[in-house]
């Protein structure tokens, strides 16, 4: 333990004053955001109180699948404080359909998705009516007085049954949303000629993203225009989609994401409640607020993962991987939401991981079930892919009797081979798997732990030690617009920034990214401080309000820095170029003779100079500017990346498994990540920590459980096990820095890396501990019960009914 803590980077030991060359980028700046967050001076959506504001409560379907035959709201309308009661029929003419912007194939089935159900409900929790009342308690009370008659239909909760001929149909068109295929190389030859073939089926259990701030919406109108505050990651996309859905013209709709308490993909959505609150405000002309309860959120915020992965790997006897075949079923839930069908495709290109191979074959079928829809959750498709390939490499190593690190070394892309185009067709710009792995092995004490493992095995210790490896990479920084276009996504992947230089030389940055915990106000300030040579404190960052930030693609997919941050850099370059012209004019020199350094424009070879603040004031006064010069230094930039970002790293996990009880304990966890250059090491480390925690949570703790009738059983935080501090290990983190070559900052995304990396490291460790007993897999989450059952099944191989009793 002591050794780990010593090796790790302790946040409080990273000194803010550790500065090289006076640069801000690379410095562990404490966050600007924190002053308001630690004192309660925040602006969450639920804080908003407006004169005359009404409160909305939704009546939600108690059945997973049913026809709605009658809704009677008459009694509810007479309850105290009730202003209005609406059912789906009341909105049918105007509510449109919730958007899906990723029709992944030409024949994809995109069912109509009314924000409020009108004739049929298809998951428990779907809104069927709502009460609008003078306070939240009264609105909730009156829900009891609404009468709804349902004619039950059959639920179908697992994908295999949903695909059975004659099974219950979620939609008229059937339960298959799409099949999407991708193939490279001669997969048949790769498998035919291979000495070893390993096949496994993995279940990516359904997860509930569980941002700490429940969703909330406030809608208002002045009779002409509308303003919607929402706890969202995507104010810009939301504005466009709400305009298209409700018919409110885009220029009459302002969307604001104020302080937002985490998202992890769950707030990358256009929700029924956002649409309905707008419609209610339009109908009543009064401001309305809706804030969900946690149980309501567990039922209705889109879920993540829920895939069934059949994967085969073919390899030569020396371990060289020849090919990978993937057959995937992806549970869409009852409807396709904003990017639901695209999530598994984001993983489609990552099943080759860091490895070279001859051939790859991928098939994904999206399946409808009577459960809440799935959509993006931290990593979105890439954690699933990385889990599968990293688990398979450990399985292959076991099959070959080879050390899993050695097997990886034989197959990964070597440092000298970058840029490297993978079998999936992606070009990884840079990386150094050797360096990250060597560093991780040293921090972990790999050989010592292997020796201890051998000793415990020899002694038949009831507590076995397992070592799990994950040498991950991922594609993030979403995304080059032309690539999104080729995948049938409905929009581009650029990002926008504008930089305004105020008369006193202070700077306002308007960004299209929409942070909800990532610290953009701090990191963007560091970038601008370096680019323009102004003090860090002199930069303000505005975001999340379409009235000030009119253009943006928001925050998800580890894109904010690598796309949005680069847009900030480019806008600063334009500002500098304008300022150079003014400086040259004021100093009676040619712009070509002006040097810029740390906020000062200097005539080359002389002592004559002007600061950027002086130039700002001179531009504001506009008395003496170059002929034809527009009197402003402000500039915009919209950056569309050429390529994705490919962070990578090596995570090593040691788990003790009690073979008598099935209990697991993570004894040590080492993560060495390479996210390219780092703007703020404190923020990067925080992202890695939180990412690892969520990945471990999938491996060991979390699962959304439904019964056969489609009822969610994990509706509270007592039932859905989010890890607390006591459940998680101390992480030892370190970095290697291989700059990205595809952006001027040399940065790679970091928001999802930890989550993508950690799940297979943990499960590989659990399985490694149990391998002497014949265990080849433990389904996630690897709870004591599951571990114990896996051991029991392995010990009694003749039993195939799955039970130990």
């Amino acid at each position: 333990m002591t050794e780990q803590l010593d090796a790790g980077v302790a946040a409080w030991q990273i000194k803010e004053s550790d500065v090289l060359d006076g640069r801000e980028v690379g410095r562990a700046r404490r966050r600007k955001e924190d002053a308001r967050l630690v004192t309660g001076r925040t602006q969450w959506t639920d804080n908003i109180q407006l004169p005359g504001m009404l409160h909305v409560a939704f009546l939600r379907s108690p059945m997973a699948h049913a026809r709605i035959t009658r809704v009677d709201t008459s009694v509810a309308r007479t309850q105290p404080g009730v202003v209005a009661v609406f059912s789906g029929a009341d909105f049918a003419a105007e509510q449109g359909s919730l958007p899906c912007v990723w029709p992944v194939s030409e024949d994809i089935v995109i069912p109509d998705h009314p924000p409020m159900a009108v004739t049929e409900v298809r998951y428990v929790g779907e809104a069927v009516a709502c009460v609008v009342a003078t306070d939240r308690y009264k609105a909730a009370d009156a829900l009891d007085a609404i009468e709804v008659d349902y004619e039950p239909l059959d639920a179908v909760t697992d994908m295999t049954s949903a695909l059975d001929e004659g099974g219950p149909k979620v939609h008229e068109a059937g339960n298959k949303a799409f099949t999407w295929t991708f193939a490279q190389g001669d997969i048949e030859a790769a498998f035919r000629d291979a000495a070893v073939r390993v096949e496994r089926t993995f279940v990516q259990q359904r997860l509930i993203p569980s941002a700490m701030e429940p969703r909330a919406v406030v809608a208002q109108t002045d009779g002409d225009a509308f303003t919607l505050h929402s706890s969202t990651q995507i104010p810009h996309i939301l504005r466009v989609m709400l305009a298209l859905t409700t018919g409110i013209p885009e220029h009459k709709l302002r969307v604001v994401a104020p302080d937002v308490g985490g998202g992890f993909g769950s707030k990358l959505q256009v929700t029924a409640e956002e649409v309905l609150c707008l419609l209610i405000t339009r109908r009543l002309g009064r401001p309305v607020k809706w804030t969900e309860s946690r149980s309501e959120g567990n039922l209705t915020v889109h879920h993540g993962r829920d895939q069934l992965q059949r994967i085969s790997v073919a390899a030569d006897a020396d371990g060289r991987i020849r090919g990978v075949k993937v057959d995937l079923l992806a549970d869409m839930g009852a409807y396709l939401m904003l990017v639901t069908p695209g999530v598994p495709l984001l993983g489609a290109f990552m099943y080759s991981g860091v490895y070279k191979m001859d051939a790859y074959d991928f098939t994904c079928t999206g399946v409808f079930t009577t459960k809440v829809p799935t959509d993006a959750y931290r990593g979105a498709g890439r954690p699933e892919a990385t889990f599968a390939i990293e688990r398979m490499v450990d399985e292959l190593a076991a099959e070959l009797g080879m050390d899993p690190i050695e097997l990886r070394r034989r197959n990964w892309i070597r440092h000298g081979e970058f840029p490297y185009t993978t079998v999936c067709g992606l070009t990884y710009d840079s990386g150094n798997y050797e360096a990250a792995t060597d560093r991780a092995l040293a921090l972990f004490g790999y050989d010592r732990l292997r020796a201890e493992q051998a000793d415990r095995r020899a002694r038949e210790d009831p507590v076995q030690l397992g070592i799990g490896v994950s040498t991950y990479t991922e594609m993030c920084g979403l995304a080059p617009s032309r690539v999104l276009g080729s995948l049938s996504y409905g929009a581009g992947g650029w990002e926008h920034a504008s930089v305004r230089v105020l008369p006193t030389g202070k700077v306002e940055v308007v960004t299209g990214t929409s942070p909800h915990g990532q610290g953009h106000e701090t990191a963007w300030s560091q970038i601008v401080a370096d680019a323009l040579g102004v003090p860090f404190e002199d930069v303000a960052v505005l975001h999340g309000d379409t009235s000030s930030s009119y253009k943006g693609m928001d925050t998800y997919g580890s894109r904010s820095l690598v796309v949005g941050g680069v847009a900030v850099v480019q806008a600063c370059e334009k500002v500098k170029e304008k300022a150079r012209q003014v400086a040259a004019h004021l100093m009676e020199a040619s712009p070509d003779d002006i040097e810029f350094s740390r906020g000062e424009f200097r005539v080359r070879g002389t002592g004559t100079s002007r600061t950027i603040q002086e130039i700002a004031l001179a531009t504001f006064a506009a008395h003496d500017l170059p002929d034809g010069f527009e009197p402003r230094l402000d500039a915009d930039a919209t950056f569309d990346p050429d390529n994705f970002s490919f962070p990578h790293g090596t995570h090593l996990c040691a788990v003790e498994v009690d073979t008598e009880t099935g209990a697991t304990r993570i004894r040590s966890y080492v993560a060495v990540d390479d996210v390219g250059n780092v703007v703020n090491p404190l923020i990067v480390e925080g992202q890695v920590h939180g990412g690892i925690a969520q990945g471990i949570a999938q491996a060991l703790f979390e699962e959304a459980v439904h019964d056969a009738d489609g009822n969610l059983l994990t509706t509270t935080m007592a039932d859905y096990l989010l890890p607390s501090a006591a459940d998680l290990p101390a992480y030892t983190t370190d970095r290697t820095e291989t700059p990205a070559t595809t952006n001027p900052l040399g940065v790679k995304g970091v928001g999802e890396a930890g989550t993508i990396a950690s799940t297979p490291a943990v499960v590989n460790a659990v399985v490694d501990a149990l391998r002497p007993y014949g265990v080849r897999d433990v389904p996630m989450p690897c709870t004591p019960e599951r571990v114990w059952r896996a051991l029991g099944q392995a010990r009694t191989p003749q039993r195939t009914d799955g039970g130990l009793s």
Partner: protein
Amino acid sequence: MSEETTRYLVTLVVNGVVREAAVPARRLLSDFLRHDLGLTGTHVGCEHGVCGACTVLLDGEPVRSCLTFAVTVDGHEVTTVEGLAGDNELSPVQRAFTECHGLQCGFCTPGFLCAVTAFLRDNPAPTEEEALEAVSGNLCRCTGYQNIIKAVHRAAEIQAETQGRPEDRGGRA
């Protein structure tokens, strides 16, 4: 008048100020603070007592304000995140969370700050295990907790420094 509409006058001291409001018997303390008194620094994360985001200090002791009825705190004293430090100052715990990057989105933070404030008052020099235990009743989805635990130790240090008791600075082994 029905049970839902009968109102009870609740008078209490919040962050050193006497406040009163007439509320129904079922009004949660969390809603009372946020919506009746306008103290929106207290956050509601789950409304069933698991996440701890709504933690406030009731007569100095941490309680889940979402599991407490406002009428039960009549005559008592409540401290929320807004009252942890003097005007425009940061308490040692608030400073430590900032220095150690013990928060990201910040939604769970007020609950942690209140819980840790009470903990360090009773145990100004905690061991690693005690610090871990102290924050285990609160959930955070962003940080992975490591920096929060560091913040507990750092707050103990700051507290010891500011209180001029260097002999108490033995928290970190």
